[in-house]
């Protein structure tokens, strides 16, 4: 058995870079240091694979050569008047860079899964800025950790041991030296290991954040409770926040996906900004897919905008609510879709998924999903970080190089290579 060290896990936004992988006959047989999410990916990536490019003809799939599939993609994209190009959080920065070029060339909209995930976070940050840091700073210095609307023990299982409550930092070394607060609508697994759990009423995060800001700014709250939380508790939390040496507020989709959306994020950022009058405090989003942060960064360096970029006017235009995938599909405006490393048929609200299924979809993905089943063209690709190299951004914006550790199945190439072929053919090279 060959052992490869320091493998970066390509599951969630933690991008844990200390994984040890054992390989025998081009197959992963052992995984060390990863969480159950990482282990499941490394040991099952070769199941439910698509091994041949295919095109839907008369309601059945016909296997075709890669060249024929690329020709069909070019035909669909060239004839579309308002195509959408979507996905990107589960592939490399290099692949996305080509995707942006394709979007510009064909005058389409390029959006990434941020738009139905932490899109409101980005809008909030663009509105009022943010006090942030890397996770290394949190690990070394934070003595107060808050998880708000986030359950890392399920969604980012090693976040606590690598970067926060259970990590051994340079200056803050033990769990005893850190206080952990969890704010959620349910007593999650993460809440069970917190010092304080605040059970908030659903859809009332904005109220509690505003009350905390008022308390931090020495206001006297003239209520018995806010968002189901007694005022004494709110005052206690405010005091804990003010008196810590380095606080870190980590928030999840509990804030972005519930009513209030970007206003919830603005309230959280404003609270952290207020706290910086007293102490050092940072705010960090808990990003889900392993390279969703990269999707924002790459789109931003090339176009100036982090997601939902519309090239139909001949220049990049960004207006969430208008140029975001969920809205374009709901309005029935797009007439073709190129989906890379994503499954919008599963993850969009049903009416939007139905509308999407009625236009020609090209999907580039390593494995079968509901989206590949309703696509016009399907091109299988290799897994970044397992079967091909690539760069990804960790959730705090640190770029890491992902390794190739085994060979892909015969004839399967990377998203980047497939996209380069499409781009080249579209340009008529």
């Amino acid at each position: 058995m060959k052992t490869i060290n320091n493998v970066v896990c390509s599951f969630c936004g933690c991008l844990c870079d200390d994984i040890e992988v054992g390989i025998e006959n081009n197959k992963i047989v052992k995984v060390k240091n990863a969480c159950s999410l990482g282990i499941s990916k490394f040991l099952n990536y070769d199941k439910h694979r698509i091994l041949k490019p295919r095109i839907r003809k008369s309601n059945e799939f016909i296997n075709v050569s890669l060249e024929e599939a690329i020709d069909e993609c070019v035909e669909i994209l060239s004839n579309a008047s308002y195509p959408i190009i979507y996905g990107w959080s589960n592939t490399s920065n290099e692949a996305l860079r080509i995707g942006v070029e394709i979007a510009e060339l064909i005058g389409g909209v390029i959006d990434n899964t941020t738009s139905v995930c932490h899109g409101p976070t980005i809008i909030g940050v663009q509105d009022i800025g943010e006090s942030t840091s890397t996770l290394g700073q949190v690990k070394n210095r934070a003595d107060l950790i808050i998880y708000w609307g986030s359950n890392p023990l399920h969604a980012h299982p090693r976040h606590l041991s690598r970067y926060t409550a259970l990590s051994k930092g340079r200056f803050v070394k033990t769990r005893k030296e850190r206080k952990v607060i969890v704010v959620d609508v349910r007593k999650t697994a993460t809440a069970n290991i917190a010092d304080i759990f605040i059970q908030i009423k659903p859809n009332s995060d904005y109220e509690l954040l505003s009350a905390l800001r008022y308390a931090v700014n020495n206001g006297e709250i003239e209520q018995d409770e806010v968002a189901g939380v007694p005022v004494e508790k709110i005052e206690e939390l405010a005091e804990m926040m003010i008196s810590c040496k380095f606080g870190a507020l980590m928030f999840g989709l509990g804030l972005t996906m519930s009513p209030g959306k970007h206003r919830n994020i603005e309230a959280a950022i404003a609270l952290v900004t207020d706290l910086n009058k007293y102490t050092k405090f940072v705010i960090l989003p808990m990003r889900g897919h392993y390279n969703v942060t990269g999707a924002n960064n790459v789109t931003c360096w090339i176009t100036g905008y982090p997601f939902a970029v519309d090239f139909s006017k001949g220049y990049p235009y960004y207006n969430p609510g208008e140029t975001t995938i969920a809205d374009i599909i709901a309005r029935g405006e797009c007439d073709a879709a190129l989906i890379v490393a994503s499954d919008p048929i599963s993850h969009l609200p049903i009416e939007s998924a139905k509308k999407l299924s009625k236009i020609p979809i090209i999907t580039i993905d390593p494995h079968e999903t509901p989206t590949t089943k309703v696509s016009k063209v399907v091109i299988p690709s290799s897994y970044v970080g397992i079967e091909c190299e690539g760069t990804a951004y960790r959730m705090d914006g640190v770029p890491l190089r992902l390794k190739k550790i085994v060979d892909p199945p015969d004839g399967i190439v990377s998203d980047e290579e497939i996209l380069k072929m499409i781009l080249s053919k579209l340009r008529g090279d």
Partner: protein
Amino acid sequence: MIKVILITGRNLEQGTSKSIGKFSKEYMEKLAICELDPEDLKSLGIESGQNIKIKTNYGEVIVKAIESKQAPHKGIAFIPYSIWANLLLGSSTNSSGMPTFKGIEAIIDVAKEGKILDLNELLKEKFEMI
């Protein structure tokens, strides 16, 4: 029948079974479920493991009720992110780009008839292209 606030979200099983494969038995078993508070199960007169029908303004779905390990949260129902959950969601983003995936009003009742559709059956029923 009970009224609840529906929360869709990630859990460990959603992550691990997704890697095994979306058309795997594990994926359906782990995701076509709804976690309910023990008191809500009692109000419905059912035990963990029985089928329920969830209805919102946007759609309905039959899934298996599971007693929540994160209780008490009476009146809050949790369903993991999946195509089953998304049958219950509306498309409007209120100009934010983001549909509402959490905090949705729903009605839950015992599913006296009907069954939980597997992914292939669900795709055939909802998407005419298949």
